[in-house]
């Protein structure tokens, strides 16, 4: 089965950064999908069923928390591994992230190595 990673952030340079960080996975046949807001992200998740989603929290239209809640709680798509990304220091959000069913909670600026390791681990690519 083709493996897909969805990168969701309203800032283009963050999307590009994450994509660039994960670039080497392209050689392993992983496909990258991107979305610039929560609504588009929710649409792509339902259509494409990606294995892994890097999801920004603060976004227009529908924020990451809400996207996560719908995917995990309403649609029951437990097979989608969701990494919530948020600005450093908003530690209280960590609990909210857990409540909406996020698998991992990461803070920005993120460490590229950590992102890559997590993606490899979730997709089972050593």
């Amino acid at each position, binding site marked *: 089965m083709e493996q897909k990673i969805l990168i969701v952030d309203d800032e283009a340079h963050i999307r590009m950064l994450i994509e660039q*960080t994960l*670039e*080497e996975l392209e*050689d392993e046949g992983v496909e990258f999908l991107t979305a610039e807001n929560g609504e588009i992200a929710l649409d792509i998740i339902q259509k494409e069923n990606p294995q892994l989603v890097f999801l920004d929290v603060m976004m227009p239209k529908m924020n990451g928390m809400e996207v996560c809640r719908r995917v995990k709680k309403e649609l029951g798509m437990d097979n989608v591994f969701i990494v919530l990304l948020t600005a450093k220091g908003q530690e209280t959000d960590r609990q909210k992230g857990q409540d909406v069913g996020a698998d991992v909670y990461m803070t920005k600026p993120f460490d*590229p190595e950590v992102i890559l390791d997590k993606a490899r681990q979730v997709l089972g690519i050593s």
Partner: protein
Amino acid sequence: MAQPTLKSLLGKRSETTAWLQSWTDFEKLGIVVEDYQNNVLFGFPLTGEQQKYPVTLDADISGWVSGEANAEMIARLLSLMLQKEAEKKKLGSEVLNLYQELNVIYNFSEKLTETIDPDVIAQITLEQAIHSIPSHSGVIVLWDEGNRQLRIPAMSGELLFNEERLLKSSDILLKIGLSGQSEIITDISLLKEKGIIENEVQSLIYAAMKVKHRIMGAIILAGKNAEKYSAAHLKLLVTLALQSSTAIESAMLYEKNIREVREREEAILRIHEVTKKFVPIEFILALGKESLTDVLLGDQVEKIVTVLFTDIRDFTSLSEKMTPEENFHFVSSFNAQLGPIIRENRGFINQYLGDSIMALFPESPEDALKAGIAMQKAVYELNLRRQSNGLPPIKAGIGMHTGPLIMGITGDEHRLDAATISDTVNTAARIESLTKYYRSPLLLSSETLRHINDTKKYQLRQLGKVQLKGKYNLLNIIECIDGNPEEDQQKKKKTLPHFNEAMGLYLDQRFEHAVQVYKNIMVTDEEDYTAQFFMDKALQYLRNGVPENWTGAEEMLNK
């Protein structure tokens, strides 16, 4: 960084694929795109030999386009798109590098806030540098301003640096990091010649550590690979070095401050310790204060205490045979023997008065008696040692009295002293001086005895009464013999009933009879000088008659 491939350009969801599809459909073109391994990426394999046009990226062939007309144009278009994709990737990669660098500095700053130890900061810096700028070994050299020498707070990785030679080569280091420069060294032969670095080292990079214009030291990294460090590496190392320098400087300032504060504290503590020796803490505590700094002129408290005086008998004749220095040494060592005994019995020394000690026992009069006994025993032991050294024995007199006493801070605003004001002190001093008169080493007043619950524990002899000068009250004087040598105690125990009988007769003015009993006592114990004293007194009254209103009391002599 991987180059973009035709496969990724012509992915299922790619716009390029969609565009190519609609165009070929519209023009009804039979076009096939293959990758460089001839796997078909677009279209269906065509029959027959077709002209293949290469799709290239930087002169490398990425794949082929074949088919009808326009295949060549499509190949060129795809080449152009690949080129654009490659440029996009390159830009992305550069942005990622910058981001990573930012991330390194961000994390590094965060780690630096976790410690205030300069050497730990150096260690963190070096670990970070080696991690971010791939190297086989690294070292931080700092100039120690205080000791005027180099030191190495951090060293990591393989042993590519010779620590000892590095520290001795400040002249060479001055040319590199310590000059304030930062650079990639290409010519490392000199460093190898001097044995500072191992032969395996192929490349070296260093950055100066400085605060403002002051050079603190340098961070040096070494690699065994021929590939040289890049300008980006140097830039990052300089950034790390500068951040680290500021942190180390702050940490050292902090350390210095802490050290100074601690030194001041210790000095104050030492002063405090010394003042405690000059003014007894018990005195200050009795005033309800915690420290000497709390006491005020006029502070005072009244307490019932037992005052004990000691005095070295015949000190004048003893001291005449000594130099002033020997004299001082003698008194000091004598006092040093008695001080602990006083403290062990919950007393404290209020004052040293030459060869005399004035001690106070605020808790219980029995404490004073116990101390007195122990002190006499100590004197006898001291005498055993003196005897074996051919020195004459010392005799000490000890007297005590219990009564009210005012402790207070007296003086004026420029000169304060802890003082005791009391009749009790005078009386105790006079009782002590009676030890000469009665030729008895340890005397207490009936006031002291009255406060001791179990007097049977002690061997006591009732001596005469004294009239305190200027007072009408008579004070009974009691001798305690528990501190006397064992042999002497035995004899006095034996004669005790007779002694008491004789004292009764004496006070009843039956002097003839009393003399008889005293004489008997002295047959058993010819060294009972106290019995001798009273016998002489009785004989004197027999000879000269008894004064009018005689109460049996001795007039209290001036000390």
